[in-house]
Protein backbone atom coordinates (compact mmCIF):
# COMPACT_ATOMS: atom_id res chain seq x y z
CA UNK A 1 0.00 0.00 0.00
CA UNK A 2 1.44 3.39 -0.93
CA UNK A 3 1.93 5.90 1.87
CA UNK A 4 2.79 9.59 1.64
CA UNK A 5 5.98 9.52 -0.35
CA UNK A 6 8.12 11.78 1.72
CA UNK A 7 11.27 9.72 1.81
CA UNK A 8 13.47 9.15 -1.20
CA UNK A 9 13.45 5.41 -0.57
CA UNK A 10 9.70 5.17 -0.74
CA UNK A 11 9.53 7.39 -3.81
CA UNK A 12 12.15 5.45 -5.64
CA UNK A 13 10.97 2.05 -4.55
CA UNK A 14 7.84 2.91 -6.49
CA UNK A 15 9.95 4.25 -9.34
CA UNK A 16 12.19 1.17 -9.31
CA UNK A 17 9.25 -1.12 -9.75
CA UNK A 18 7.68 1.15 -12.39
CA UNK A 19 10.83 1.33 -14.55
CA UNK A 20 11.16 0.81 -17.46
CA UNK A 21 7.90 1.76 -19.16
CA UNK A 22 7.13 0.97 -22.77
CA UNK A 23 7.48 4.02 -25.02
CA UNK A 24 3.85 3.85 -26.18
CA UNK A 25 2.44 4.26 -22.68
CA UNK A 26 4.77 7.18 -22.02
CA UNK A 27 3.80 9.10 -25.15
CA UNK A 28 0.20 9.23 -23.95
CA UNK A 29 1.42 11.57 -21.22
CA UNK A 30 2.03 14.18 -23.88
CA UNK A 31 5.26 16.13 -23.77
CA UNK A 32 6.94 13.78 -21.23
CA UNK A 33 10.37 12.48 -22.29
CA UNK A 34 10.67 8.72 -22.69
CA UNK A 35 12.37 7.04 -19.71
CA UNK A 36 16.07 6.36 -20.17
CA UNK A 37 16.97 3.02 -21.67
CA UNK A 38 19.12 0.54 -19.80
CA UNK A 39 22.09 1.64 -21.90
CA UNK A 40 21.55 5.30 -21.05
CA UNK A 41 21.17 4.52 -17.34
CA UNK A 42 24.47 2.65 -17.31
CA UNK A 43 26.15 5.54 -19.14
CA UNK A 44 25.07 7.84 -16.32
CA UNK A 45 26.54 5.48 -13.74
CA UNK A 46 29.77 5.26 -15.71
CA UNK A 47 29.94 9.06 -15.82
CA UNK A 48 29.38 9.27 -12.07
CA UNK A 49 32.13 6.74 -11.47
CA UNK A 50 34.57 8.58 -13.73
CA UNK A 51 34.16 11.84 -11.88
CA UNK A 52 34.03 10.21 -8.48
CA UNK A 53 37.55 9.03 -9.24
CA UNK A 54 38.54 12.60 -10.01
CA UNK A 55 37.14 13.68 -6.67
CA UNK A 56 38.83 10.81 -4.81
CA UNK A 57 42.20 11.87 -6.23
CA UNK A 58 42.20 14.82 -3.82
CA UNK A 59 39.72 13.74 -1.21
CA UNK A 60 38.68 16.03 1.66
CA UNK A 61 38.65 12.82 3.71
CA UNK A 62 42.41 13.39 3.98
CA UNK A 63 41.70 16.32 6.29
CA UNK A 64 39.94 13.96 8.67
CA UNK A 65 42.57 11.27 8.30
CA UNK A 66 45.16 13.80 9.39
CA UNK A 67 42.97 14.91 12.29
CA UNK A 68 42.45 11.28 13.29
CA UNK A 69 46.18 10.64 13.38
CA UNK A 70 46.61 13.62 15.70
CA UNK A 71 43.86 12.32 17.96
CA UNK A 72 45.31 8.81 18.00
CA UNK A 73 48.68 10.03 19.21
CA UNK A 74 47.52 12.73 21.62
CA UNK A 75 47.18 12.19 25.36
CA UNK A 76 43.52 12.87 25.99
CA UNK A 77 40.56 12.12 28.23
CA UNK A 78 40.29 11.73 32.00
CA UNK A 79 43.20 9.27 31.96
CA UNK A 80 45.37 11.60 29.91
CA UNK A 81 46.44 8.71 27.73
CA UNK A 82 46.93 8.26 24.00
CA UNK A 83 45.45 5.48 21.91
CA UNK A 84 48.86 4.17 20.98
CA UNK A 85 48.38 1.03 23.07
CA UNK A 86 44.98 0.28 21.54
CA UNK A 87 44.78 -3.25 20.18
CA UNK A 88 42.81 -3.25 16.95
CA UNK A 89 43.34 -6.97 16.49
CA UNK A 90 46.93 -7.10 15.27
CA UNK A 91 48.50 -6.30 18.63
CA UNK A 92 48.64 -3.19 20.82
CA UNK A 93 49.36 -0.07 18.81
CA UNK A 94 49.42 -1.81 15.42
CA UNK A 95 47.29 0.36 13.15
CA UNK A 96 48.64 -0.55 9.73
CA UNK A 97 46.45 -3.23 8.15
CA UNK A 98 44.08 -3.50 11.12
CA UNK A 99 40.96 -2.06 9.44
CA UNK A 100 40.69 -4.79 6.79
CA UNK A 101 40.66 -7.46 9.50
CA UNK A 102 37.64 -5.96 11.21
CA UNK A 103 35.10 -6.91 12.50
CA UNK A 104 36.83 -9.65 14.50
CA UNK A 105 36.71 -11.42 17.85
CA UNK A 106 38.48 -9.82 20.80
CA UNK A 107 39.32 -12.10 23.72
CA UNK A 108 39.59 -9.23 26.20
CA UNK A 109 35.84 -8.57 25.84
CA UNK A 110 34.84 -12.02 24.53
CA UNK A 111 32.94 -10.32 21.71
CA UNK A 112 33.17 -9.50 18.03
CA UNK A 113 33.76 -5.81 17.42
CA UNK A 114 33.85 -3.66 14.30
CA UNK A 115 36.40 -0.89 13.77
CA UNK A 116 34.45 2.01 15.24
CA UNK A 117 33.23 -0.06 18.14
CA UNK A 118 36.78 -1.17 18.94
CA UNK A 119 38.13 2.38 18.73
CA UNK A 120 35.35 3.60 21.02
CA UNK A 121 36.21 0.71 23.37
CA UNK A 122 39.83 1.89 23.49
CA UNK A 123 38.70 5.48 24.06
CA UNK A 124 36.71 4.34 27.07
CA UNK A 125 39.14 1.83 28.56
CA UNK A 126 42.45 3.57 27.83
CA UNK A 127 41.44 7.22 27.89
CA UNK A 128 38.46 7.18 30.27
CA UNK A 129 35.85 8.61 27.91
CA UNK A 130 32.25 7.55 28.49
CA UNK A 131 30.29 5.61 25.87
CA UNK A 132 27.04 7.38 26.84
CA UNK A 133 28.68 10.73 26.04
CA UNK A 134 30.07 9.55 22.70
CA UNK A 135 26.70 8.01 21.82
CA UNK A 136 24.92 11.33 22.34
CA UNK A 137 26.32 12.89 19.16
CA UNK A 138 27.96 10.10 17.20
CA UNK A 139 27.56 11.53 13.70
CA UNK A 140 29.17 14.43 11.85
CA UNK A 141 27.37 17.67 11.27
CA UNK A 142 28.43 20.69 9.24
CA UNK A 143 29.84 22.19 12.42
CA UNK A 144 31.54 19.26 14.11
CA UNK A 145 33.09 15.90 13.37
CA UNK A 146 33.06 13.56 16.37
CA UNK A 147 36.47 12.24 17.41
CA UNK A 148 35.64 8.58 16.68
CA UNK A 149 34.81 9.51 13.08
CA UNK A 150 38.21 11.11 12.54
CA UNK A 151 39.89 8.19 14.29
CA UNK A 152 38.10 5.60 12.14
CA UNK A 153 39.12 7.58 9.05
CA UNK A 154 42.76 7.53 10.16
CA UNK A 155 42.70 3.82 11.00
CA UNK A 156 40.94 2.98 7.74
CA UNK A 157 43.48 4.98 5.77
CA UNK A 158 46.22 2.82 7.26
CA UNK A 159 44.73 -0.18 5.42
CA UNK A 160 44.71 1.56 2.08
CA UNK A 161 45.52 -0.85 -0.77
CA UNK A 162 45.16 -3.98 1.34
CA UNK A 163 42.99 -7.02 0.81
CA UNK A 164 39.87 -7.31 2.94
CA UNK A 165 40.43 -10.29 5.23
CA UNK A 166 37.70 -10.38 7.85
CA UNK A 167 38.27 -13.52 9.95
CA UNK A 168 35.70 -16.25 10.35
CA UNK A 169 37.81 -18.59 12.48
CA UNK A 170 36.40 -18.08 15.94
CA UNK A 171 32.92 -19.54 16.58
CA UNK A 172 31.68 -16.11 17.67
CA UNK A 173 32.90 -14.61 14.41
CA UNK A 174 30.87 -17.17 12.49
CA UNK A 175 27.83 -16.74 14.73
CA UNK A 176 28.01 -12.96 14.29
CA UNK A 177 28.07 -13.40 10.52
CA UNK A 178 24.91 -15.55 10.72
CA UNK A 179 23.12 -12.96 12.83
CA UNK A 180 24.17 -10.30 10.35
CA UNK A 181 22.77 -12.30 7.49
CA UNK A 182 19.50 -12.77 9.32
CA UNK A 183 19.24 -9.02 9.96
CA UNK A 184 19.99 -8.34 6.29
CA UNK A 185 16.97 -10.35 5.20
CA UNK A 186 14.71 -9.39 8.11
CA UNK A 187 11.60 -7.52 6.94
CA UNK A 188 10.12 -5.16 9.46
CA UNK A 189 9.01 -1.60 10.07
CA UNK A 190 6.04 0.18 8.57
CA UNK A 191 7.32 -0.33 5.02
CA UNK A 192 8.03 -4.01 5.55
CA UNK A 193 11.49 -3.46 4.12
CA UNK A 194 14.63 -5.43 4.75
CA UNK A 195 18.12 -4.48 3.59
CA UNK A 196 17.52 -7.05 0.86
CA UNK A 197 14.54 -5.06 -0.44
CA UNK A 198 17.01 -2.60 -1.96
CA UNK A 199 20.25 -4.57 -1.84
CA UNK A 200 19.28 -8.16 -2.41
CA UNK A 201 18.65 -8.19 -6.17
CA UNK A 202 20.50 -7.18 -9.31
CA UNK A 203 19.49 -4.16 -11.33
CA UNK A 204 17.80 -2.02 -8.67
CA UNK A 205 18.29 1.73 -8.40
CA UNK A 206 17.09 4.84 -6.56
CA UNK A 207 16.69 7.68 -9.05
CA UNK A 208 20.18 7.98 -10.52
CA UNK A 209 22.01 5.81 -7.98
CA UNK A 210 22.58 2.15 -8.73
CA UNK A 211 21.82 -0.11 -5.76
CA UNK A 212 24.45 -2.85 -5.50
CA UNK A 213 23.37 -6.39 -4.65
CA UNK A 214 25.31 -7.08 -1.45
CA UNK A 215 24.53 -10.78 -1.47
CA UNK A 216 26.85 -11.24 -4.44
CA UNK A 217 30.61 -11.32 -3.86
CA UNK A 218 31.48 -9.03 -6.76
CA UNK A 219 29.03 -6.35 -5.65
CA UNK A 220 29.45 -6.72 -1.88
CA UNK A 221 32.65 -4.70 -2.15
CA UNK A 222 30.47 -1.66 -2.67
CA UNK A 223 29.19 -1.89 0.89
CA UNK A 224 32.77 -1.71 2.11
CA UNK A 225 34.59 0.41 -0.46
CA UNK A 226 34.62 4.11 0.09
CA UNK A 227 33.66 3.95 3.75
CA UNK A 228 34.40 5.87 5.84
CA UNK A 229 33.47 8.36 3.19
CA UNK A 230 33.49 12.11 2.70
CA UNK A 231 29.90 12.80 1.80
CA UNK A 232 29.47 15.55 -0.79
CA UNK A 233 26.00 16.22 0.56
CA UNK A 234 26.79 18.49 3.45
CA UNK A 235 30.55 18.10 3.09
CA UNK A 236 30.86 15.82 6.11
CA UNK A 237 32.81 12.69 7.02
CA UNK A 238 30.71 9.59 7.72
CA UNK A 239 31.50 6.06 8.82
CA UNK A 240 29.56 2.83 8.33
CA UNK A 241 27.95 3.34 11.73
CA UNK A 242 26.25 6.39 10.22
CA UNK A 243 25.46 4.66 6.93
CA UNK A 244 23.67 1.74 8.58
CA UNK A 245 21.85 4.07 11.00
CA UNK A 246 20.63 6.07 7.99
CA UNK A 247 19.46 2.94 6.17
CA UNK A 248 17.49 1.88 9.26
CA UNK A 249 15.96 5.35 9.39
CA UNK A 250 14.85 5.19 5.79
CA UNK A 251 13.46 1.70 6.26
CA UNK A 252 11.37 3.04 9.18
CA UNK A 253 13.19 0.66 11.53
CA UNK A 254 13.79 1.54 15.15
CA UNK A 255 17.01 3.48 15.59
CA UNK A 256 19.95 1.11 16.04
CA UNK A 257 22.19 1.70 19.04
CA UNK A 258 25.52 3.36 18.29
CA UNK A 259 28.20 0.64 18.06
CA UNK A 260 25.59 -1.96 19.06
CA UNK A 261 25.65 -5.72 18.50
CA UNK A 262 23.18 -5.58 15.61
CA UNK A 263 25.36 -3.18 13.65
CA UNK A 264 28.48 -5.24 14.35
CA UNK A 265 26.63 -8.27 13.04
CA UNK A 266 25.42 -6.54 9.89
CA UNK A 267 28.91 -5.11 9.28
CA UNK A 268 30.39 -8.60 9.67
CA UNK A 269 27.98 -10.05 7.13
CA UNK A 270 28.70 -7.28 4.61
CA UNK A 271 32.47 -7.30 5.10
CA UNK A 272 32.91 -11.07 4.87
CA UNK A 273 31.02 -11.02 1.59
CA UNK A 274 33.70 -8.63 0.29
CA UNK A 275 36.68 -10.66 1.49
CA UNK A 276 39.55 -10.91 -0.95
CA UNK A 277 38.91 -7.58 -2.63
CA UNK A 278 41.26 -4.64 -2.25
CA UNK A 279 40.24 -1.79 0.02
CA UNK A 280 41.17 1.56 -1.51
CA UNK A 281 40.82 3.61 1.66
CA UNK A 282 38.39 6.34 2.68
CA UNK A 283 36.40 7.46 -0.33
CA UNK A 284 33.91 9.96 -1.64
CA UNK A 285 30.21 9.40 -1.29
CA UNK A 286 27.40 11.35 -2.88
Amino acid at each position, binding site marked *: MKRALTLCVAATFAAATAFPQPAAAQSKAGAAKPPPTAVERDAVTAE*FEKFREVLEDANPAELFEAKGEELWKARRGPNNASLERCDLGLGPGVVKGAYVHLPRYFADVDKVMDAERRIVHCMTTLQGFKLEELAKRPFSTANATPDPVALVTYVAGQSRGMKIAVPQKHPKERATFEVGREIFFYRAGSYDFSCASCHGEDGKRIR*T*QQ*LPNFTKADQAIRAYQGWPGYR*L*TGGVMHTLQWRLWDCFRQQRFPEPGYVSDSLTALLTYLAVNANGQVYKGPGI*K*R
Partner: protein
Amino acid sequence: MTDLSRRAALKGAGAGTLLAAAMAAGLLRPSDALADWNKGAFEAKTVSDALKSLKVVSPAETKDIAIKAPDIAENGAVVPIEIQSNIPGTKSIAVLIEKNPFPYAGSFDVSQGAMPFVALRVKIGESSNVRVVVATADGRFYTAVKEVKVTIGGCGG
Protein backbone atom coordinates in the same frame (compact mmCIF):
# COMPACT_ATOMS: atom_id res chain seq x y z
CA MET B 1 39.65 39.72 -14.76
CA THR B 2 41.00 41.52 -11.74
CA ASP B 3 42.85 44.60 -12.75
CA LEU B 4 46.44 43.53 -12.41
CA SER B 5 47.88 47.03 -12.11
CA ARG B 6 45.75 47.68 -8.99
CA ARG B 7 47.01 44.48 -7.44
CA ALA B 8 50.63 45.50 -8.06
CA ALA B 9 50.05 48.89 -6.39
CA LEU B 10 48.54 47.26 -3.29
CA LYS B 11 51.49 44.99 -2.88
CA GLY B 12 53.93 47.90 -3.12
CA ALA B 13 56.16 48.88 -0.23
CA GLY B 14 54.24 50.32 2.69
CA ALA B 15 50.83 49.26 1.43
CA GLY B 16 50.88 46.31 3.80
CA THR B 17 51.46 48.35 6.93
CA LEU B 18 48.98 51.07 5.94
CA LEU B 19 46.25 48.47 5.53
CA ALA B 20 47.17 46.76 8.76
CA ALA B 21 47.06 50.06 10.64
CA ALA B 22 43.72 51.00 9.10
CA MET B 23 42.28 47.61 10.03
CA ALA B 24 43.60 47.84 13.57
CA ALA B 25 42.02 51.27 13.94
CA GLY B 26 38.69 49.73 12.89
CA LEU B 27 38.59 51.87 9.77
CA LEU B 28 38.56 48.92 7.42
CA ARG B 29 36.63 45.66 7.62
CA PRO B 30 38.63 42.65 6.44
CA SER B 31 36.64 42.36 3.21
CA ASP B 32 37.42 46.00 2.40
CA ALA B 33 41.10 45.23 2.64
CA LEU B 34 40.81 42.80 -0.21
CA ALA B 35 40.78 45.49 -2.86
CA ASP B 36 41.85 42.90 -5.36
CA TRP B 37 38.63 40.94 -5.02
CA ASN B 38 36.19 42.11 -7.67
CA LYS B 39 33.10 42.78 -5.58
CA GLY B 40 31.14 44.15 -8.55
CA ALA B 41 31.69 41.00 -10.58
CA PHE B 42 31.04 38.65 -7.65
CA GLU B 43 27.78 40.39 -6.77
CA ALA B 44 26.50 40.52 -10.35
CA LYS B 45 23.33 38.49 -10.85
CA THR B 46 23.73 37.96 -14.58
CA VAL B 47 26.56 36.76 -16.74
CA SER B 48 26.56 39.96 -18.79
CA ASP B 49 26.77 42.17 -15.69
CA ALA B 50 29.61 40.03 -14.34
CA LEU B 51 31.49 40.29 -17.63
CA LYS B 52 30.99 44.06 -17.61
CA SER B 53 32.54 44.28 -14.15
CA LEU B 54 35.38 42.08 -15.33
CA LYS B 55 35.91 44.51 -18.23
CA VAL B 56 35.51 41.68 -20.72
CA VAL B 57 34.94 43.00 -24.23
CA SER B 58 33.67 40.97 -27.21
CA PRO B 59 34.81 37.50 -26.12
CA ALA B 60 35.26 35.29 -29.19
CA GLU B 61 33.81 31.79 -29.10
CA THR B 62 36.64 29.30 -29.44
CA LYS B 63 37.31 25.60 -29.50
CA ASP B 64 40.76 26.18 -28.01
CA ILE B 65 39.53 26.18 -24.42
CA ALA B 66 39.06 22.63 -23.18
CA ILE B 67 36.59 22.28 -20.32
CA LYS B 68 36.50 18.90 -18.61
CA ALA B 69 33.40 18.57 -16.44
CA PRO B 70 30.73 15.92 -15.98
CA ASP B 71 27.80 15.89 -18.41
CA ILE B 72 25.70 14.97 -15.39
CA ALA B 73 26.96 15.84 -11.91
CA GLU B 74 26.34 13.23 -9.24
CA ASN B 75 26.03 16.02 -6.70
CA GLY B 76 25.71 19.70 -7.61
CA ALA B 77 27.47 20.67 -4.38
CA VAL B 78 30.85 19.48 -5.67
CA VAL B 79 31.33 19.55 -9.43
CA PRO B 80 34.95 19.04 -10.53
CA ILE B 81 36.03 21.19 -13.47
CA GLU B 82 39.36 21.22 -15.29
CA ILE B 83 40.17 23.97 -17.78
CA GLN B 84 43.02 23.93 -20.24
CA SER B 85 43.48 27.00 -22.46
CA ASN B 86 45.38 26.36 -25.65
CA ILE B 87 45.26 30.00 -26.69
CA PRO B 88 48.74 31.54 -26.89
CA GLY B 89 49.36 34.34 -24.41
CA THR B 90 46.69 33.23 -21.94
CA LYS B 91 46.86 35.57 -18.95
CA SER B 92 43.88 34.53 -16.88
CA ILE B 93 40.96 32.16 -16.82
CA ALA B 94 37.55 33.17 -15.45
CA VAL B 95 34.72 30.77 -14.59
CA LEU B 96 31.02 31.61 -14.52
CA ILE B 97 28.12 29.28 -13.69
CA GLU B 98 25.38 30.84 -15.79
CA LYS B 99 22.36 29.77 -13.74
CA ASN B 100 23.86 30.29 -10.27
CA PRO B 101 22.35 33.19 -8.30
CA PHE B 102 25.74 34.91 -8.60
CA PRO B 103 27.25 33.50 -11.78
CA TYR B 104 30.86 34.66 -11.34
CA ALA B 105 32.71 31.91 -9.48
CA GLY B 106 36.24 33.24 -9.79
CA SER B 107 39.24 33.85 -11.94
CA PHE B 108 42.76 32.51 -12.00
CA ASP B 109 45.81 34.56 -12.93
CA VAL B 110 48.30 32.32 -14.72
CA SER B 111 50.40 35.13 -16.17
CA GLN B 112 53.28 35.01 -13.71
CA GLY B 113 54.71 31.56 -14.24
CA ALA B 114 51.87 29.08 -14.35
CA MET B 115 50.59 26.97 -17.22
CA PRO B 116 47.22 28.00 -18.69
CA PHE B 117 45.43 25.35 -16.64
CA VAL B 118 43.24 25.26 -13.57
CA ALA B 119 41.24 22.63 -11.71
CA LEU B 120 38.49 23.63 -9.29
CA ARG B 121 35.34 22.28 -7.67
CA VAL B 122 32.18 24.37 -7.76
CA LYS B 123 28.61 24.39 -6.55
CA ILE B 124 26.09 24.29 -9.36
CA GLY B 125 22.54 24.97 -8.19
CA GLU B 126 20.69 23.75 -11.25
CA SER B 127 21.60 22.39 -14.66
CA SER B 128 23.62 25.14 -16.24
CA ASN B 129 26.30 26.12 -18.69
CA VAL B 130 29.73 26.53 -17.22
CA ARG B 131 31.21 29.48 -19.09
CA VAL B 132 34.94 30.09 -19.24
CA VAL B 133 36.48 33.39 -20.37
CA VAL B 134 40.17 33.63 -21.13
CA ALA B 135 42.04 36.94 -21.26
CA THR B 136 45.20 37.09 -23.34
CA ALA B 137 48.24 39.34 -23.13
CA ASP B 138 47.20 41.28 -26.22
CA GLY B 139 44.04 42.49 -24.50
CA ARG B 140 41.67 40.03 -26.23
CA PHE B 141 39.07 37.72 -24.72
CA TYR B 142 37.96 34.22 -25.67
CA THR B 143 35.12 32.08 -24.38
CA ALA B 144 33.74 28.53 -24.36
CA VAL B 145 30.93 26.73 -22.55
CA LYS B 146 30.19 23.25 -21.25
CA GLU B 147 26.76 22.23 -20.08
CA VAL B 148 26.57 20.42 -16.75
CA LYS B 149 23.31 18.78 -15.75
CA VAL B 150 22.50 18.50 -12.08
CA THR B 151 20.13 15.79 -10.91
CA ILE B 152 18.30 14.86 -7.77
CA GLY B 153 20.20 11.81 -6.77
CA GLY B 154 19.33 8.81 -4.70
CA CYS B 155 19.75 8.05 -1.07
CA GLY B 156 23.48 8.75 -1.01
CA GLY B 157 25.95 5.90 -0.66
